[in-house]
């Protein structure tokens, strides 16, 4: 099998892993080595599904001994199998890196035999890349649950970011769909990585020769829509992971049916892309907007509203917190206003030291006045007076009603519901309704519904 074919097979097997970021560590280049890292991360390409390619995302091998029902690489699936040779992988990484195709390597693997054996081979590949090929760029390595802690330590010293996938949001689902994986086996390396990473950061402040252990922290990912958990459960779990294991990111991956199984959603199910999007929005609220999971969802309302983003939803439920005076409010208060994000909040705080801010100034600063105007005052004057229906209309997320032409072939120019539109829109169009008409109808209903709640 030639290298290109191998690469194709192993990339195809790795594509369902979502964590393709290269963020979290700033490291300038060094003579004698190749590569550097930038803390915000750099994307290098975007595939037609709109996801970024930042790292050379491959599996070391896709010959798996496990049989997880949701996974394409499970033992019982009949697919082409391949395994890299360490030097091949190193040369591929360096070749792509020099051409500015990628930001580094993302290495994961199917379980070959047992977790320890797999980890040892991954470590060998990374060691060759770092020590012999002098690679100084980003490496994201996946720890295999159940591997020896010593191996996790060795991997962490070679990688910038590590991750352990918790796969499914609850132990019950894990037991049902991935009987070979145990919750404890997933959480143990996560705990270890968090501890060692913290310790190495402390040591690096004190000793000169201390080695960084996963300096870009760790992340995890879970599949959304394969099991019956609510959004509230998922966001609660996410918050706990951030707090307990000081994770940098939690990734969500909308479940794509790849196999017929009575325990899983039917093969015709659409991936819940809008739900995934809402979860990411909520995740951002947790990390950058000082929200807590309990504020976003409650027992009576366990799932996110598909038509409104979680922040607008919160704002509508808490009218007592508004309006906010932009010229005096604290940063935390500003961050709660729909239409003001962390960047514009920072700019407002800096700008108002020099001048009074009115609506025109806010617009120049980059505030989305369409939403923000109903929630702020400038020097005591309300940004805008709106009826409930007007406010609801301004807050609705246009993504939920997305209609557009996605040309898969030349004669395909009919507008269709976009893949990340609300599931109701897909349902109405599947029932034979004109897509534009369906979007308008749905929008009307959403406005009525939100107005009633206000």
């Amino acid at each position, binding site marked *: 099998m030639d290298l290109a074919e191998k690469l194709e097979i192993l990339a195809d097997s790795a594509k369902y892993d979502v964590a393709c970021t290269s963020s979290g560590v700033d490291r300038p280049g060094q003579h004698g080595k*190749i590569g550097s890292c930038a803390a915000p991360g750099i994307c290098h390409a*975007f595939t037609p599904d709109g996801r970024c390619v930042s790292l050379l995302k491959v599996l070391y091998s896709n010959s798996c001994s496990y049989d997880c029902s949701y996974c394409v690489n499970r033992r019982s699936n009949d697919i082409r199998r391949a395994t890299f040779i360490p030097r091949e992988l190193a040369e591929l990484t360096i070749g792509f890196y020099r051409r500015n195709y990628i930001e580094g390597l993302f290495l994961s693997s199917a379980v070959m035999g047992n977790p320890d054996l797999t980890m040892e081979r991954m470590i060998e590949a990374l060691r060759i890349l770092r020590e012999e090929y002098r690679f100084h760029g980003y490496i994201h390595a996946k720890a295999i649950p159940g591997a020896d802690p010593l191996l996790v330590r060795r991997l962490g010293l070679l990688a910038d970011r590590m991750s352990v996938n918790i796969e499914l949001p609850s132990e019950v689902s894990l037991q049902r769909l991935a009987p070979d994986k145990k919750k404890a086996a997933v959480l143990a390396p996560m705990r270890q990585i968090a501890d060692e990473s913290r310790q190495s950061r402390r040591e690096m402040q004190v000793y000169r020769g201390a080695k960084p252990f996963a300096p870009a922290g760790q992340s995890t990912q879970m599949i959304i829509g394969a099991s019956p958990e609510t959004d509230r459960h998922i966001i609660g779990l996410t918050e706990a992971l951030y707090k307990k294991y000081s994770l940098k990111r939690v990734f969500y991956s909308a479940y794509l049916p790849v196999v017929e199984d009575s325990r899983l959603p039917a093969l015709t199910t659409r991936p819940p892309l809008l739900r995934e999007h809402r979860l990411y929005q909520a995740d951002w609220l947790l990390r950058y907007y000082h929200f807590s999971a309990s504020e976003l969802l409650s027992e009576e309302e366990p799932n996110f509203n598909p038509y409104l983003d979680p922040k607008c939803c919160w704002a509508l439920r808490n009218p007592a917190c508004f309006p906010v005076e932009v010229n005096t409010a604290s940063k935390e208060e500003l961050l709660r206003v729909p239409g003001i994000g962390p960047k514009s909040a920072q700019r407002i705080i800096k700008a108002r030291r020099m001048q009074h801010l009115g609506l025109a100034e806010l617009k120049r600063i980059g505030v989305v006045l369409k939403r923000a105007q109903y929630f702020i005052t400038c020097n005591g004057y309300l940004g805008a007076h709106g009826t409930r229906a007007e406010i609801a209309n301004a807050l609705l997320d246009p993504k939920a009603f997305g209609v557009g032409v996605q040309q898969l072939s030349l004669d395909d120019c009919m507008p269709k519901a976009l893949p990340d539109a609300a599931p109701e829109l897909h349902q109405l169009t599947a029932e034979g309704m004109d897509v534009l008409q369906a979007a308008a109808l749905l929008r009307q209903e959403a406005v009525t519904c939100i107005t009633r709640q206000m």
Partner: protein
Amino acid sequence: MHYQADVADVVYRYDGSMQGFLCCVFESFCRKELPAEICSPAEDRLTLYPDREILTDSQRAQRVLAGIERLGGSVKQRFTTAFLSTDPEKERILLRYLRTAFNTGRGVDQMLGDPDVAAAWQLERAVNGEAHHFIEFLRFEERGGMLGAVIHPKNMVLPLLRGHFCSRLPDESFLIYDASHGVAMMRRGDTVRYLEMTDYDPVSDPEELEWQSMWKRFFKALTIEQRRNERCQRTHCPRRFWQDMCEMTGGCLAVPERTVSTAKRSLPGNSSEGTDIRSSTLVTISQTPQ
């Protein structure tokens, strides 16, 4: 301090260099006037107002630059970055920005609510944003041990790419050719040179094409068909960058379109044969230590 100025019915013409522009700023303060327009020779604009030729005087430019430096690093940074823009309004925007800056003093860079400051900030953002896109989407090709890339930027982004690529590839020689402005940045050893360049031949080395086809296969394998969302792809990677990205242009062995577009710019007497980029006709503009 408040510097008064009236809008004057006059057009400044300068040589297009930063020093030249700084002299325009000097002139504007000297005569207490805001010109209706400032034109560089690149944009041959017709105006109804009388012209005034502003001569470049490095001493005057130095005085203005020292004044800008006193206002803080971020003011200077905004000015120098925004000056790389090719927006036809750039001179007018920057003059107004510098006048506001000298009136206000330090801290002017944070007054983003002010229309003049916000306009300069937008220019800076556009230039930085484009430079970042090229850091992401630039594609090198290897030939004879040297890396080469072609880009078609709107703004003069080469100086902003320099730090990133010099740090990333510390022991490599590389050349980035800005085809829209006919300038190339070449790094060899410890020096970076900016060169005038008119022609760039796409690579035909089979080994390099092999790498490109491998990258294309990888790119194709990563796509999840059920999630197809081309609008999202175009939002993150606008169409205008595609012409220089090997995975976005046609089949594996297709000759990239850029051969046609650069050939138009080639001057008479320049040979377009020879695959080595180092042998192309290059005129050194400036040479700076890295």
